[in-house]
């Protein structure tokens, strides 16, 4: 059953996965090549900065990959009003677990491509001894970020209208009302501490704040 569910998920999302995989596999090489056009002699700092910039792009790709793969694998069910999956003799929990395992396997593919692409793309860069390639680490972050996005989106779309409204209101409160109140009342916010909460584990988004540089010191 898992094999069939995986095969069907692959069938639904293979174009998306192929496109994303190819893109992120060539992105490191492309970035290094583009930099070679302007800088034949790579400076270590320049390389690191460039890798950090590439990391930002990869982070965004990870989010988009998670979303696209969720959408492509679930679109058929939601457009069919879930009639088919609810008529199958399987508990919802089993179904979701199988789907998630399948999705994780599918999300591994772009991450693997990023790893290979990162290794190849940086292989021709003359690295000074103080710099190193961290393609595997970045690929793992990519996998983690895309999986997290997949699960987050999966939970969000399950929300009822009331819950979605509640989440929206909380976000609105945090984004707009709180800063206004702070500006008026002059209450001091421990911004640095708040940032640490957001950026460090066990924050759910800590993966996005970690080092995404393929080439780093």
């Amino acid at each position, binding site marked *: *059953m898992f*094999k*069939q*569910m995986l*095969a*069907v998920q692959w*069938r*639904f999302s293979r174009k998306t996965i192929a496109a994303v995989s190819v893109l992120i596999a060539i992105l490191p090489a492309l970035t290094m090549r583009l930099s070679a056009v302007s800088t034949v002699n790579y400076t270590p700092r320049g390389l690191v900065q460039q890798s950090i910039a590439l990391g930002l792009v990869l982070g965004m790709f990870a989010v988009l990959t998670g979303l696209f793969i969720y959408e492509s694998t679930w679109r*058929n069910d939601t457009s*069919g009003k*879930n*009639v*088919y999956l*609810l*008529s*199958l*003799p*399987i*508990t919802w929990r*089993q179904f979701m677990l199988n789907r998630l395992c399948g999705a994780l396997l599918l999300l591994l593919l772009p991450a693997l491509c990023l790893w290979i692409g990162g290794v190849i793309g940086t292989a021709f860069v003359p690295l000074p001894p103080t710099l190193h390639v961290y393609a595997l680490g970045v690929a793992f972050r990519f996998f983690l970020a895309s999986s997290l996005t997949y699960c987050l989106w999966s939970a969000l779309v399950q929300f009822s209208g009331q819950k979605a409204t509640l989440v929206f209101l909380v976000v609105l409160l945090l984004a707009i009302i709180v800063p206004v109140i702070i500006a008026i009342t002059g209450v001091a916010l421990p911004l640095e501490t708040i940032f640490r909460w957001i950026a460090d584990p066990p924050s759910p988004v800590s993966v996005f704040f970690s080092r995404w540089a393929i080439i780093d010191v």
Partner: protein
Amino acid sequence: MSDAIHIRNLGYRAGKEFAIRDLAMTVPTGSVYGFLGPNGSGKTTTIRLMLGMLPKLDGEVTVLGHSMPEGAHHALAKIGFVPERLHLYQTLTVEESIAYHASFYKNWDAAEAERLRREFALRAENTVGRLSKGEAGKLMMLLALAARPDLLVLDEPTDGLDPVVRRDVLGALVEFVERKGTTVFISSHLVHEQERICDWVGVMDGGRLVAELPMHAFRAGIKRLRVNGAAPVIDGMPFVVLSRDLVVGHEEQWVVRGWQPEMAQWFQRGGAELRGVMDLDLEESFVELLRSSRSPMPEGN
């Protein structure tokens, strides 16, 4: 043997307009149960509640001995379901759809699936989204039958199909039922189709089950009577008057349920004259039943 489907006091509400109230229904094991009702009467909703696809508000639903929706995954393993509309993944091929569906059923009969695919002339490599309505109906029936179910739940399985395809689909169904003795629950508004194959009938209207009886009782028990000189209010009638219309002068036309020939004497004792008794076909009976459920006769008539 226990009933295949047993529903008591089922309640459900969808928005402000539609509700199912106090629904009670029994589908005997081995029967072919025709579930009749006009469009929007609640047939599909009842089926979804029955299969655990919708959460019920109250009441109890037992299907093949499993309480629903808690035991849905156990019950669904023994149910072949053909929904109202094509529910399969549109981008898969026929072959992929069959393989995917088969992986969920322990009793899947691959040989039977292949035989039906050939019989229905379904090409394995065609994608589901490109199948004609008839081919899609055949594929859904194939998937329902090849699971070798104990219960077949068919929601308007032949709706919109041309006569040839309808004959193929119903033929496969009848053959399967004859071979395996499966219980069939078939919902439709095509009354003639039900008349041919069903041995039990349930009639749904406005979220209520207005009648549930064996097909022979349904067919034989509803009659149209021509009555002359009947009093406006009569007590102690041995049958149920579904409708009573004035035709000309003092002659009226009655539609009654539970008619027996010896009841003719009752008119003479009441000073009225019974001028004729006419049979109704199933469709006319169905229409009269709905009329009477929507505007019931006052008490005493």
